[in-house]
């Protein structure tokens, strides 16, 4: 059930969506494709599903070459950002669709649909139409529909993108639990780094049609290999040629080795945490994350000039991306 993408390129007219992209996804894993809009993440997902054809390169599903296999023969489940609900069918018929087109026996279809409706907690909504469901319910229905034919691979394209924050968090948690239960190889696309860090066991960061780095959430956060990953996964400050996380910065009243001079612009206290926004002498904005107690001990005010020194910093040899 592993997925292998080998040197895939894709152009849309003048725009290069994917540039020689290779990716290996372990069977049974939960992987996020993370990147800003236009980074090629959705295109890559659609190529794996067979909804787009690559200009060059190959896709292997479970070790078998799938590049020229039609989407209906790939045995993948696909969940769209805007649900793609079959509006003229009830929830039950939506979920049963993949089984009906495969001409499975009626009893089997009925049992499996009921089981899936239970799994997504829509057992009471089987006779409703998609227009009578909330966004979160529609997306759960779409998920049950995608899982019904027992796909080898589950692909989700910004599945929570159209939902409000509370439902998003709920469905995120829910997708993680579902993956633990069903254990189907899952890839989901998101532009929200917090979502990727929270749900996925492996993250591939895309930028400008290339993969910047693949790794676990901790690896990406602690060992970013490019400037882009540093900035995109978690918050980052630039101090001269160095990159520093906001919680790796210290504020002091007196200069020290490696410290830069900065003026405090704003201080905000968020319960236990405190954020200090500064402007360095060279004009670069700097954010420092600290605890409330430490800030109180420092006794600093807005407009004050202080010294900021990195406790842990990184230098990226090659600037891989434009700002």
């Amino acid at each position, binding site marked *: 059930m592993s997925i292998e993408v080998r040197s895939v390129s894709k152009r849309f007219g003048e725009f290069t969506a994917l540039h020689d992209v290779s990716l290996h996804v372990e069977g049974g894993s939960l992987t996020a494709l993370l990147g800003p809009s236009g980074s090629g993440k959705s295109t890559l997902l659609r190529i794996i*599903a*067979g*909804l787009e054809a690559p200009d060059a390169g190959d896709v292997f599903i479970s070790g078998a070459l799938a590049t020229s296999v*039609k*989407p*209906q*023969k*790939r*045995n*993948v*489940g*696909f969940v*769209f950002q*805007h649900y*793609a*609900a*079959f*509006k*003229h069918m009830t929830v039950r018929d939506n979920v049963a*669709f*993949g089984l009906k*087109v*495969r001409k499975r026996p009626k009893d089997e279809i009925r049992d499996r649909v009921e089981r899936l409706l239970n799994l997504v907690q829509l057992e009471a909504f089987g006779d409703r139409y998609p227009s009578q469901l909330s966004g979160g319910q529609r997306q759960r229905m*779409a998920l049950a*529909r*995608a899982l*019904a*034919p027992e796909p080898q691979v589950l692909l989700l394209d910004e599945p929570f993108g159209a939902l409000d924050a509370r439902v998003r968090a709920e469905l995120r948690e829910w997708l993680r639990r579902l993956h633990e239960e069903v254990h189907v190889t899952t890839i989901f696309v998101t532009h929200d780094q917090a979502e990727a860090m929270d749900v996925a066991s492996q993250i591939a960061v895309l930028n400008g049609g290339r993969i910047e780095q693949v790794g676990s959430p901790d690896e990406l956060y602690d060992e970013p290999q490019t400037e882009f990953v540093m900035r995109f996964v978690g918050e980052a400050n630039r101090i001269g040629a160095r990159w520093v996380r906001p919680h790796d910065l210290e504020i002091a009243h007196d200069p020290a080795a490696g410290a830069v001079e900065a003026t405090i612009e704003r201080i905000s206290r968020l319960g236990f945490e405190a954020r200090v926004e500064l402007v360095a002498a060279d004009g670069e904005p700097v954010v420092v994350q600290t605890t409330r107690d430490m800030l109180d001990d420092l006794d600093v005010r807005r407009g004050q000039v202080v010294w900021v020194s990195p406790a842990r910093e990184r230098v990226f040899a090659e600037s891989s991306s434009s700002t």
Partner: protein
Amino acid sequence: MRRYSLRGVALVYLASILVGPLLIVFWRTFQHGVGPAWDALSAPDTIHAFKLTLIITAIAVPLNTAFGILCALTVVRRDFPGKGVLNAFVDLPLALSPVVVGLALFLLYGRAGWFGPWMTRHGIQFLFALPAMVAATIFVSLPFVAREVVPTLREIGDEQEQAARTLGAGSWQTFWRITLPSIRAAVMYGVILTTARCLGEYGAVAVVSGRIQGVTETATLRVQERYESFDLAGAYAISMVLALVAVLVLLTTNLLKPKEVA
């Protein structure tokens, strides 16, 4: 108040333009009782004219429905050079006078036309017969299904079709189970408009039919013929039947329309 005055203007306009003439036809038909009207309608040539109109409609409507859906799918879902031209050509019958269409068929299939001599040699009677009348009717009623279906297809997008594909449905299954049910209301509306256009067609058919009584005379041609023969009762009676059908078509349309809007 303003709402009522607007409504009043609309109703007066409709009454004078549409309902008035309809009522006059109705009144004239039965001016001298039911007898003359019934006689006119039961004349063998009149019955034949109605039959011919129905036959032509029964051939033209299914063909144009299939073509209209296919054409709409091609224009909306496919990208190819010349797409703009196809799109424009579908509208051509709306812009072109039916008489011109008739003349064009005449020039193509007439004795001196491109295909005329070949057809004569093979014993195919095209002009002054059913084939030419069907062709003319198909031409003038071509755009309606496509025009109704195109915006609906654009609106629903192709995500549902893609979802069906990933769920294992082939193109044929996707069309019957997903696309067609989604555009059903638009297709029905297009079919009704096409039917109305076929039933009422006069100009193009007048040119290519030869107007042979009891042979190539449709209902609309028959109205004209009766009128010219000073048989006003007959002309009114046939007109009334055509008007009734038109009203029925309109009513059906209105029954379907709100669903599409909702």
